[in-house]
């Protein structure tokens, strides 16, 4: 068999953990090999070794059958290995061409020869169906386009092996389809692709083979055509996983959160939320769908008190809280699972027990007369960590930084639900988590709804929105373009609405 990349018996140890334990993967020329594994399974470490960011403790890397030593990313580049990172590495106010040539600028006399570079980029773009304008500025083009610029960067450097690290997280459903088509073009032109992902559906749709990694070890490699999503999920987690969310229908109740005519400015002083009105009711999960950057972040920040509003009102349980402090909103029944758990949700240098009282440390029983009650705080943490299955080496005394992403998120979810909120604003509650944790968190959100509480679920994952929501509000360009019943629309309908073009579909699926 003709392998282009072979990583054989790779072992990499970090203090305290064996990140890669005798891992071998083989990429055939002209195929898409998916690398599937939970967070912390060792996928990123393995790819970092291939890309020259880490050095393996033992094991060999072979390229076209010949052993190579990838000592740094420049060597990887010379060997024809390129990587599209999860977070793009682009200069915002440079053009596409300037970004692509950065580091190997073609020189003509004393000046950079951008013209010939742009011509070559245009050619490449046409060959692979990328449709990128070499003279556009990065800040003016969509996220999907920016990703194509990253792909062009690799192609411009004549990469033969392309690594995609979680490439679809930031894309709309339409853009995901386009990306799949691009990947097929790349394969058609003889490139080989390593795809790191936790989205089983995408593996099924595009990959040829799939290598599953669990706790640093290879569990197996399967031909995607001969397997199904459930089988792959089981290999990844080590037990059977249920995909469908059990959710009995129920009547929603009174309005608990009433937003009317809300206007909010973004950090860059652009109108992020425009004249937005929305009502969330007791006993429902209201899903807020939308492409990243359409005002969801600003809306949530305005609702929770982290951002000032320009005009409009926010009523919580009938009380106007438009100008209330964050603390006042928390105390009157609002909880918030923030988008960025490490930046907003946790004080990473605090112990878990301190983090689990982040909003209530000042209230009895956690403090009396201005002094903290350590015993009560610890008991609280022990209980929450057990209830929500948060695993940490040193239990409640573990520093938050030392926990895995999934455990950090479970801790936040536990803390917020423990406040027994009337309305829980959950933003991307399962971002970057493995299927086991996702299943668990989904169950908890539905439980909250079944207890008659309200959940406002803001997510970029359409699957999640479709599965969990009782109603879906679609947001585009700062406004709600429609509210639909998930049972009467398809994912594609919602995807189209997210682009803001079609109100027809909204009519088709309008509930009552």
């Amino acid at each position, binding site marked *: 068999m003709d392998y282009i990349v072979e990583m054989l018996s790779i072992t990499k140890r970090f203090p305290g953990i064996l990140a890669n334990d005798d891992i071998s993967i083989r990429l055939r020329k002209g195929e898409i090999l998916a690398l599937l594994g939970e967070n912390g399974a060792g996928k990123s470490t393995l790819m970092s070794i291939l890309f020259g960011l880490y050095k393996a403790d033992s094991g060999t890397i072979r390229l076209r059958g010949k052993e190579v030593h990838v000592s740094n990313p420049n060597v990887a580049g010379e060997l024809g290995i390129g990587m599209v990172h999860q977070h793009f590495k682009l200069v915002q106010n440079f053009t596409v061409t300037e970004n692509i040539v950065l580091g190997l600028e073609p020189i003509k006399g004393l000046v950079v020869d951008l013209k010939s570079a742009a011509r070559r980029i245009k050619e490449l773009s046409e060959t692979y169906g990328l449709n990128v304008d070499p003279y556009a500025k990065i800040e003016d083009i969509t996220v999907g386009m920016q990703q194509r610029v990253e792909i062009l960067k690799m192609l411009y450097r004549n990469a033969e092996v392309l690594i995609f690290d979680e490439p679809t997280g930031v894309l709309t459903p339409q853009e995901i389809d386009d990306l799949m088509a691009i990947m097929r073009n790349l394969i058609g032109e003889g490139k080989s692709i390593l795809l790191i992902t936790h989205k089983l559906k995408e593996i099924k749709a595009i990959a040829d083979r799939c290598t599953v990694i669990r706790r640093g070890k290879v569990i197996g490699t399967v031909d995607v055509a001969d397997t199904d999503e459930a089988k792959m999920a089981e290999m990844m987690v080590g037990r059977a996983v249920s995909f469908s969310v059990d959710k009995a229908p129920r009547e929603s109740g009174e309005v608990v959160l009433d937003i009317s005519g809300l206007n909010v400015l973004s950090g860059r002083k652009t109108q992020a939320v425009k004249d937005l009105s929305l009502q969330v009711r007791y006993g429902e999960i209201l899903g807020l769908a939308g492409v990243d950057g359409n005002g969801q972040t600003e809306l949530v920040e305005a609702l929770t008190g982290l951002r000032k509003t320009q005009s409009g009102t926010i009523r919580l349980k009938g009380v106007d809280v438009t100008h209330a402090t964050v603390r006042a909103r*928390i105390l009157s029944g609002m909880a918030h699972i923030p988008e960025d758990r490490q930046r*907003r949700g946790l004080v990473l*240098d605090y112990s878990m027990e301190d983090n689990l009282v982040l909003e209530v440390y000042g209230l009895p029983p956690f403090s009396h007369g201005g002094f903290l009650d350590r015993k009560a705080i610890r008991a609280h943490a022990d209980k929450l960590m057990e209830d929500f299955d948060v695993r940490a080496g040193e239990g409640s005394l573990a520093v938050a930084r030392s926990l895995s992403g999934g455990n950090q998120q479970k801790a936040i979810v536990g803390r917020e639900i423990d406040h027994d909120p009337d309305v829980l604003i959950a933003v991307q509650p399962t971002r970057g988590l493995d299927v086991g944790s996702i299943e668990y968190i989904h169950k908890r959100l539905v439980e909250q709804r079944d207890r008659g509480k309200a959940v406002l679920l803001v997510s970029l994952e359409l699957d999640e929105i479709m599965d969990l929501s009782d109603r879906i509000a679609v947001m585009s360009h700062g406004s709600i373009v429609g509210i639909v019943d998930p049972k009467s629309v398809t994912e594609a309908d919602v995807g189209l609405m997210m682009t803001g073009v079609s109100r027809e579909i909204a009519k088709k699926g309008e509930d009552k």
Partner: protein
Amino acid sequence: MKGLRDLFTALAAVILGLLAGAVLMLAIGANPLEGFSYLFRGGLMNIERIGNTLATATTLTLTGLAMAFAFRTGLFSIGAPGQMLMGGLVATVIGLSLHLPKWEMLTVILLAAMIAGSIWGFIPGYLKARFNVHEVVSTIMLNWIAYWTVYYVIPAHFKANLETESARIPDYASLKVPWLTEMFKGSFINLGVFAAIVAAVVISIILNKTVLGYELKAVGFNRTAAEFAGINVPMNMALSLGISGALAGLAGATFYVGYAVNMQIGVMPSQGMDAIAVALLGANSPLGVVLAALFFGVLHSGKGFMNAMTGIPPEIGDTIIAIIIYFAATSVLFTRLFDGLRARFRRGQ
């Protein structure tokens, strides 16, 4: 674990600083063993010198605590010199204007010095909270405002014979008390040493046991998470700098109406800047600050003796302190070394 690592880091910085000092002594042709022996004897050889070391460490402990407290809230205040000056000025003014029984007098002086210092700390705190003025800039400016205020007020209203210093602080307004002075055979030691110990204990309690400390540290570690939790971030920053200022104001009182007998004009107190080193070496923990202040106290009071006995310039003492600061500031190197050694030790087992 963290405590052990901090201790390792601090000791490594001190040892490397002393080694560098030894190299310098060799370079000027002196015998380092002799030099160090006189340096430490100068700080510790008899009860009077120990008293002087303690008196030096008193002021350094208080300014060090002031720095450490601000650092813990994520604020790089360098306002301790100005806050010391304002605390010292108010203490001097009261000492030379009021006439009360000694204990009442001292209570008034210490409280007033703390209030003066805390106002001088609260101003940059407020500017930071309200207008996002960087605390480094505003504290430096306030240092100079304090400097020139002293420069004007003392000669204009409180001088005796010389233009450059205030009149002598009367005994009833001085932190020096006869029993303590006699116990340490006439050294500069004064009641400030107890104030410093109490302050270290109080700050330790605030940081570790109280709701206030929880909030301040949360703001210091992660401002956005503190905001998310509903903690009033601007108010906490202003409060933190206010408390920090109160400590530095207290340091000013222990220096100008305790250690010294009058207030000189035109001097920016070096203890305010040395405090950064004390806080760094003490890893921003109250106990660490006390230990670091004692160590620097020894160096400060011993360097003159070393110079007198060996001809090694006293600046070598200052150089050692400076080098220790460098090593303490690059402590991440030692932290890595410590973790590496520990990992190797574990694997070896």
